[in-house]
């Protein structure tokens, strides 16, 4: 069977399906190819979405446990893992089916199968039902990424998990070692710990969430120290071995007990781009040393008919970055002068408390020699945070010293992921601290912390008394 299409999109994650839908909306004929039954990709099937469903449950469990402090005592939670797994799966099914029906409404030709490029303008899709040859004018590669594997952690055992199998929630292990103190490890660690596992985290570097400003990480680190059995920093896993009762892990670094036994080990040490697309060598597409497909600011590869977006096209590997690149690439194909040039890409860690930041971090400002002033508003003075008994948060603004222009925003605290959107808007619009200060924020909400942090920059915040230094 042979087909022709104006645009073929390979990979139906939040980059690929956004590209396909937008192209269809612009009146192009689109073919979207993925191995899954419905569009969704890692994000919907094995990433953002299932993890957030589980984290929501974890948060409810945690809140219930805290309620005794407020005079409401619940019994110990009885956890039905099958039912929990089904709830999570229901969320995934609902969303992917939804995206699938939207694809049909848009008349996007969805082809399920595995694609092999046969040239700069052709590919072949292999499926159980047979092969399909597809001729395209343009191709958007949105093949995503996969969990990083390293030899020292390569052990073929059901007790060894990566983020994908971890989200499958096979059981609630008595003890779990999370390898990697990044956002994936901490999110999944939080889920398992709340469900009852004794969770230990091992991180190679000196702190959790490398890349985030330390003052934002601190409230989370404080809480995780009570939630987790152990946080081992500056420590490496050198060996894993299967035993009858679990996995024996050998550590190297700042840890007293060099050998420990865990029921399960979850490896979350990062993700690698899926750039080994079969048949890519039949095109001029170039792949860099880190495995990302090289693109220009329009996301066009070295092969003019082929674009690449999302995780496979470079850091940061985030769904919302992929969706934005999708629009850029489609507009470029449609002949517009679109380029990918965001001034802020928000990053959110959905732990409890959440951490979110965008734009320039304080550490980056220092590194790049940008003359900034940081204005912080601690949530201890934020009424809404006190009412929900979560005063440990922080909202900070990284501001250009001479003008007060907002260059970076960081939030640590419950709901930080929602609050950061205002920061992104402020940076993209070129807003100044004065603008944020003069925008009325609703009371009592956590968003007031953004306004009050801006007031701190001017040496006057309603709820923080901090006289201006001479």
């Amino acid at each position, binding site marked *: 069977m042979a087909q022709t299409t104006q645009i073929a999109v390979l990979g139906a994650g939040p980059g690929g399906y956004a590209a396909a839908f937008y192209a269809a909306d612009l009146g192009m004929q689109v073919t979207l190819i993925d191995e899954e039954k419905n569009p969704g990709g890692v994000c919907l099937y094995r990433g953002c979405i299932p993890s957030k469903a589980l984290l929501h449950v974890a948060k409810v469990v945690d809140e219930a446990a805290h309620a005794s402090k407020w005079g409401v005592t619940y019994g110990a939670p009885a956890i039905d893992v099958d039912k929990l797994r089904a709830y999570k799966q229901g969320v995934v099914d609902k969303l992917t089916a939804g995206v699938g029906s939207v694809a049909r409404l848009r008349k996007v030709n969805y082809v399920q199968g595995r694609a092999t490029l046969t040239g700069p303008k052709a590919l072949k899709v292999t499926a159980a039902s047979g092969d399909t040859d597809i001729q395209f004018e343009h191709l958007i590669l949105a093949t995503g990424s996969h969990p990083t594997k390293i030899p020292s952690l390569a052990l073929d055992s059901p007790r060894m998990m990566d983020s994908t199998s971890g989200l499958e929630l096979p059981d609630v292990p008595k003890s779990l070692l999370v390898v990697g103190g990044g956002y994936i490890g901490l999110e999944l660690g939080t889920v398992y710990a709340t469900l009852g596992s004794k969770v230990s985290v091992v991180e190679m570097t000196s702190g959790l969430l490398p890349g985030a400003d330390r003052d934002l990480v601190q409230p989370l680190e404080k809480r995780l120290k009570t939630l987790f059995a152990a946080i081992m920093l500056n420590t490496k896993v050198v060996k894993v071995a299967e035993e009858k009762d679990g996995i024996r892990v050998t550590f190297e670094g700042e840890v007293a007990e060099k050998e420990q036994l865990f029921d399960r080990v979850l490896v979350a040490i990062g993700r690698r781009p899926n750039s080994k697309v079969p048949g890519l060598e039949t095109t001029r597409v170039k792949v860099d040393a880190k495995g990302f497909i090289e693109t220009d600011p329009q996301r066009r590869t070295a092969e003019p008919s082929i674009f690449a977006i999302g995780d496979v096209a470079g850091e940061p590997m985030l769904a919302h970055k992929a969706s934005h690149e999708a629009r850029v690439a489609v507009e470029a194909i449609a002949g*517009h002068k679109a380029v990918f040039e965001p001034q802020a890409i928000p990053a959110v860690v959905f732990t409890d408390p959440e951490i979110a930041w965008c734009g320039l971090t304080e550490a980056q400002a220092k590194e790049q*020699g940008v003359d900034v002033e940081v204005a912080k508003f601690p949530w201890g003075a934020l009424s809404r945070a006190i009412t929900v008994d979560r005063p440990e948060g922080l909202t900070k603004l990284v501001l*250009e010293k001479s003008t007060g222009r907002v260059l970076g925003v960081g939030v640590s605290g419950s709901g930080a992921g929602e609050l950061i959107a205002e920061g992104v808007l402020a940076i993209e619009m070129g807003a100044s601290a004065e603008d944020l200060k003069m925008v009325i924020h609703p009371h009592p909400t956590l968003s007031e912390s953004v306004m009050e942090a801006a007031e701190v920059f001017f040496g006057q915040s309603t709820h923080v008394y901090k006289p201006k230094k001479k």
Partner: protein
Amino acid sequence: MTEFKVPELGENVASGDVAKVLVSVGDTVKKEQPVIELETDKATIEVPSSVAGVVKEVKVKKGDKVQVGAVIFTVDDGAAGNGAGKAAAAPAKPAEVKAEAKPEAPAEVKPEPKPEPRPDPKAEAKPESKPDTKVLPMPQRQAADAAPPAPSPAPAANVLPAAASPAVRRLAREIGVDINAVPGTGPAGRISQEDVKEHARRILSSVGSAGSPAAGGAAARASRPMPDFAKWGEVAREPWSNIRRVTAEHLSYSWNTVPHVTQFDKADVTALEELRKKYKDQVVKAGGNLTVTAMLVKVLATALQKFPQFNASIDPDRGEVIYKKYVNVGVAVDTDRGLLVPVIKQANQKNITQIAVELQQLAEKARDRKLTVDEMSGGSMSLSNLGGIGGTYFTPIVNWPEVAILGVSRGGTEPVWKSTPAGPSGSAEGSFVPRQLLPLSLSYDHRVIDGADAIRFLRWVVEAIEQPFLLSLIG
């Protein structure tokens, strides 16, 4: 009281016409509020106020031509709209304020506009403290105060991205403007869509003015529709020769650029004619023709040394007059292909015979199409003698960048009143005598030459013709 003056409007823009006055007496103006619309030859500019307060007096009206630095209005900053009492002081230095304080006719154009420095935001921060009303300073950042209200330079490259929203960045991209080069006028240097458009306009107008204005003028004329001449009778269409086209462009430019004045006089050439006839053969032997033109070249060469402003050019961009230390005289030559103007170089260092010989050679070259560009450039002043054909007077067009041209028409014998010396009775008596008179027309650039200077020059030329001995005496 504070004056708001026309700020620097941009490169090479020294003045503009007031297209609209957006404030009137009694209005409260804020900083950055547009107060007048100025039409310059490059663009219409909305001029934002750099001062705040209640308008006391508006010194311009629609249609006025104003220079950079001219006072637009004054405000009473005692009633400053700015709560901090931070009404800006005039950008001018105190001494200049004094000089400007005299009431000026609104439309008056200051003879020598001095571009003033852009208001320095730091310099304006002197509140006029009033003892009875105490205004508390608002919590303001020292740093934020320093944010200039005037367009701040684009942020240093590679450090910070341009402070422009995604939609503004898209606009810049689509019209081909580098967003990092756009000066932002908003708070914290934020770039608006207007800033992008203004920047694009500035780029376009600077490119436009670099092109040939003469070509622009020709284009403007060419743009008027042509009637269909064929409906009135037969016509023939021939290509416009290159030489005619260049002449047309050159003369159009000169005509549009140079404010022309032409003055007339007559020279008595009776004596000169006698000399000419007497020495004619001698010059022929040397290989030239002793013509009136050759003799006039010598006269002009001598006059140019005596009147240096006739041997000059104007550089309006630099505001300078260029005086030439060399004396080259161009002579218009009629050819079958059109008008050509070969130049006798260093005419002041040549005698009339040499000039006559050279003129002969150049005229032949002109008719044989052998003149080089070099032989046709570098003139100090030009001479156009149409006397061989006829006519009484004409108004020649200055051969820009020269500033003067002498036109010569046909001479003839005329009765001239000649008085005899006063007799014993004391009454002057005399009679008409026939004399040969040559009509002269001097066109000049009134920007550098005034009427009195021109007539002095022309009188000198006339006298030199009438008394050729003067040439040897001075030249």
